[in-house]
Structure formats: structure tokens, C-alpha cells
């Protein structure tokens, strides 16, 4: 057991526990808090894989932006007092069966697919450096991502305008 394995098990435990608690807890505010921990655990997984820029983006955009947005939305609407699981037992049981069957299927496929079983080790220089991220993001050659970058920026602009238009007071 080196430190990578210990960190992996800690992060996996955090992710599994908080994502299950997100969907079974009764108060929606607690659900948002557990979602926050699941997202932070995912950021930790990115750091563990050596994708540090991705982990930083995940922490800033998801944990810093989206969760704050959700908390504001929950507090602005009457979401806090909502009883969020008033479904019939049959429907809950059927949903649980569907999720478990799907998880079993995916797990079976993952373990029998004979993926290249690479051991998670400390990242070396094969993993993306910060310079290469920036060069790829803003270049137009074969490995460039300038066009999707611009498309995403237009999309974000449209979403800002749409959000203001929809949510403004009339």
C-alpha cells in the first residue's frame, strides 16, 4: 500500500458515500451539500490521475460556481421545505432495481472487457503539461481546439443572455 492507493480508497469512499447520500437524503439542502463533496472527490480523482488543470477547473467551476448557484436557487424557491421523496414504494423499488441492474451490467462489462490494465502510478511527463494545454487550446493545427473553444464561448454568452432574459422581473 503506497500513498496512491490510500488516497484512491479515501477518495473513492467519499465519492461513493456522498453520491448515494445525495439521492437518498430527505432535505434538499443536504443533498446539495453531499453533491458538493462528491464533486470535490472527483476533483481529487483528477489530481490523482495527474490532470491537475482539470482538477482545478472542476473545483472552481463545479464546487465554486454551480453549487453556489444551486444553494441560491434552493433558498430563493421554497425548495428547502419540499418533501422530496413522496413517491409510492413500488416506484422507488422499481427505480432501485433499474439502477442496480444497470450498475451490475456496466460493472460486468468493465471487468470482462480486458481493458489495458494499467496501474495507477505517479504521473510522469507523458501526462499533459500546462504549456501543452494552453497550446492545444489556442491552436488551429491538427491537435488544436480553437473552434470548439470559440463555440463554447458563444454558447456561454448565449446562456448568460438567456439566463438574464428568463429570470428578470417583468
Amino acid at each position: 500500500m503506497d500513498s496512491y492507493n490510500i488516497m484512491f480508497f479515501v477518495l473513492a469512499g467519499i465519492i461513493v458515500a456522498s453520491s448515494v447520500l445525495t439521492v437518498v437524503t430527505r432535505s434538499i439542502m443536504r443533498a446539495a451539500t453531499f453533491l458538493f463533496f462528491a464533486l470535490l472527490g472527483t476533483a481529487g480523482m483528477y489530481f490523482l490521475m495527474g490532470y491537475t488543470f482539470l482538477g482545478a477547473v472542476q473545483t472552481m467551476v463545479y464546487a465554486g460556481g454551480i453549487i453556489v448557484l444551486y444553494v441560491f436557487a434552493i433558498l430563493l424557491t421554497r425548495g428547502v421545505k419540499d418533501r422530496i421523496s413522496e413517491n409510492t414504494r413500488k416506484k422507488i423499488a422499481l427505480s432501485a432495481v433499474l439502477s442496480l441492474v444497470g450498475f451490475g451490467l456496466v460493472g460486468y462489462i468493465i471487468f470482462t472487457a480486458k481493458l489495458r490494465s494499467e496501474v495507477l502510478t505517479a504521473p510522469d511527463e507523458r501526462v499533459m503539461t500546462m504549456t501543452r494545454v494552453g497550446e492545444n487550446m489556442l491552436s488551429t493545427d491538427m491537435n488544436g481546439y480553437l473552434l470548439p473553444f470559440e463555440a463554447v464561448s458563444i454558447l456561454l454568452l448565449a446562456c448568460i443572455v438567456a439566463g438574464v432574459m428568463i429570470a428578470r422581473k417583468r
Partner: protein
Amino acid sequence: MIQIEYILIVSAVMMFAGVFGFLTRRSTLAILLSIELMLNATDLNFAAINRLMYSGGHEGYFFTLFSIAISAAESAVAIAIMINIYRQLKDTTADKLSKLKW
């Protein structure tokens, strides 16, 4: 030793927790939280498969980056819609929102 496949198992747990929440929740905001969980699981999958199959490459890395940006935009618009619905109907429970149907 930790194989990278184990990350795929963790993200599968996250994905199907999201599916369960999506099917059982009633409050639309809780449904949105479940959708975020599912989106996050797919992001983790992209990154893990990129690291596993083609660790010199960067396709999954950039796909994850753009996917995070798009899901941020999606949740911003969705929350604007929720706030507007609450302002007009005073209720955001999914089975009460039937005004558009008839």
C-alpha cells in the same frame, strides 16, 4: 495495486446513483442535482479512459474540459427557468407543473 479500471467502477456508482435520484425525486431542483451527478460521472469516465487507453493523448482531457463548461451553462439556464416557474406558480414540484400540457 490500483488499476485504473477501479475509477470506472467509482464513476459507474455515481452514474447510477444519479439515475436513481432522477427517477425518484419530485422537486425539480433535486432532479437537477441528480443530472449534475450523472454529468460528473461521464466527465470522470472521459478523463479515466483517456489516462487508461492513450495516456500520451489529450482528447478525453479536452472533452472533459468542454463538457464541464457546457454543463455549467446548462445548469445556469435550468436554474433561471426554475426561478421563473417559482415566481409564476409558487411551486416547483415536478408533477404540479402541468400547465404547458393542456
